[in-house]
């Protein structure tokens, strides 16, 4: 059981690391496109890893309720499909409207 706790803690810590990297990228990058580049991947992976860790925790602690891990698997699946799609739609809308990408030497937006 201690090994399961270590595994769950490792998955939660990795998810938190990616979540924080996404947040810092959202704060620090100079442009809209680079900000979405940072957060669109890091945040998807962070949320997926956190939910995966809780799924592993559920499998070894509450073995009598098999419906709830199914919901969590659906949640991971939906996040991994929907979040990059939303990022792509937002970025394509910004490109169609005509927001210029940041070039080296310009002022930070």
């Amino acid at each position, binding site marked *: 059981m201690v090994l399961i706790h270590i595994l769950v803690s490792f998955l939660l810590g990795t998810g938190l690391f990616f979540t924080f990297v996404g947040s810092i990228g959202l*704060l620090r990058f100079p442009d809209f496109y680079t900000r979405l580049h940072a957060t669109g991947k890091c945040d998807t992976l962070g949320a997926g890893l956190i939910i995966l860790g809780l799924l592993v925790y559920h499998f070894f602690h509450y073995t009598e309720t098999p419906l709830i891990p199914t919901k969590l698997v*659906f949640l991971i699946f939906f996040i991994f499909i929907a979040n990059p799609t939303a990022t792509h739609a937002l970025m394509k809308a910004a490109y169609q409207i005509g927001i210029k990408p940041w070039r080296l030497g310009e002022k930070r937006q």
Partner: protein
Amino acid sequence: MISIFLATGILISIAIGLSLYRVVKGPGIFNRTAAVNIIGTKTIALLVVMGYYFERPYFFDIALLYAMINFIGTLVFAKYLEKGNLWS
């Protein structure tokens, strides 16, 4: 193990607070929309962690619903910003 869940929830809340800066400050509507989308994704993870911390599995249904609403809201907002109206 419960304390680890509590620490995870607090750290996700701190990350949400960091992202909230971009909602308030960020120049233009696209930065704000992207930051709201990111906050929604973090909120899903926070809801699942809260469901294990309080030992109430009903939070997972709310998390599923929140994921769908976040996705559809971002898509509708992107289409509105791109085309100018929603029904064309």
